[in-house]
C-alpha cells in the first residue's frame, strides 16, 4: 500500500502544490525583486567574463531552498578559460 501510494502520488497535485509553495516562499522571504536578480546576473556575468568565456545566453540563476536556508543557485556554462588574462596580471 505504501509503495503504491508513493507511486500514485509522485505526480499528485499535492506534490505540485508543495513544490510551488516552497519556491514562492523562498522568493517572498528573500524579498528580492526579479529586477534586482537580473541586475545581479548581469554583474556576475561581467565578473566571470574576466576569467572565463561563458555562454551568457544559457545561464540559469535563481533562488532555491536548501534545508531551510535560501541558496542562490547558478548554472553557468563555461566555454573556455582565459589563461592569458591571468598570466598577464601575474607579470
Amino acid at each position: 500500500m505504501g509503495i503504491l501510494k508513493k507511486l500514485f502520488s509522485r505526480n499528485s497535485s499535492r506534490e505540485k502544490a508543495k513544490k510551488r509553495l516552497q519556491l514562492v516562499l523562498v522568493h517572498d522571504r528573500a524579498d528580492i525583486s526579479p529586477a534586482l536578480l537580473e541586475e545581479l546576473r548581469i554583474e556576475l556575468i561581467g565578473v566571470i567574463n574576466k576569467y572565463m568565456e561563458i555562454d551568457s545566453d544559457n545561464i540559469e540563476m535563481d533562488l532555491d531552498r536548501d534545508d531551510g536556508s535560501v541558496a542562490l543557485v547558478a548554472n553557468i556554462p563555461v566555454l573556455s578559460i582565459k589563461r592569458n588574462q591571468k598570466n598577464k596580471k601575474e607579470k
Partner: protein
Amino acid sequence: MESRVIVVTSGKGGVGKTTTSANLSVSLARAGYKVVAVDADIGLRNLDLVMGLENRVVYNFVDVIEGSCRLNQALVRDKRVENLFLLPAAQTRTKDAVNPSQMVALTEDLKKEFDFVIMDCPAGIEGGFQNAAAGADEGLIVTTPEISAVRDADRIIGMLESLQKSPNRLIINRVRPKMIKGGDMLEVEDVLDVLAVKLIGVVPEDPSVIRSTNSGEPLAFANDSPASKAFENIASRLTGVDVPFLDLENMNGSGFFTGFKKLFRFSR
C-alpha cells in the same frame, strides 16, 4: 490568572478566522474562563452574526474609544454560557476610525475584566491587522491546506514576529482527509514543513460549521461534531492542557497518520 490577549489572524480572507474566534471563545467560556470576543473587523462586522448575537448589538468598540459610551455598555453578554461577552465592531465606519495606540488602551481595559481577550482580525496586512494585533500578546494563525492561504499565513507570521508577538501558533482549518488520501491536498506535515510555527490544532472540513453559522449557534455549544471537538481541543491546548490530536477518519495508515504523529511532536 494573568489575562491573555490573542489575535486570531490569517492574512487571507475566508479561511475561518471568525468561526475560529467564535468557537474558541465559547469553548474557553465553557471551561470556566471569563472571555470577551472582540470583532476587530471595522466596516465588515460578522462575529456578532456567527455568534448569533446580532440582534443585541447596541454600541461598538469604536463608540467606546471615542467616548460615546462606557465599555460595559458596548459589551454584549452571551446568555447561553456564563462569562462570555462580545465586543462588536462598528459597521458603518472604516479601519482608520481607530489607531493602534487606542487599541492598546482598549485591550488594557479589557484585560482588567477578562481572562481571555480573543481578537477577531480582519483579512489583509494593512491598518485593520495592525489595529487588531496592537494590543495582543500572542497570535493564532488560521490557514487552510491551500497554497494561497499558506503563503499569506507565512507573510502574517513574519509580521507577528516583527511585532514581537509570542507564541504564534497555527490552526489548519478545513482539512479533508479523503482528499489527502488521494494525494490531492497538502498534508498537515507539508504545511508545517514550510511554515516556521508550531501547530496548535487541525480542524476537519465539517458541514455542521455552515449549519451552525446559519443558525447563529457556535458549534462549541454542542460537542457532537468533528469540528466542534477540534475547536474544543484547541481551547484546551491554549490553557496548557496537553490534548492528543484528533483521530480524523481513523487514519487507516494514510499519510494523514504520519502527519499527525509529526505534529504531535511539533506541539510540544
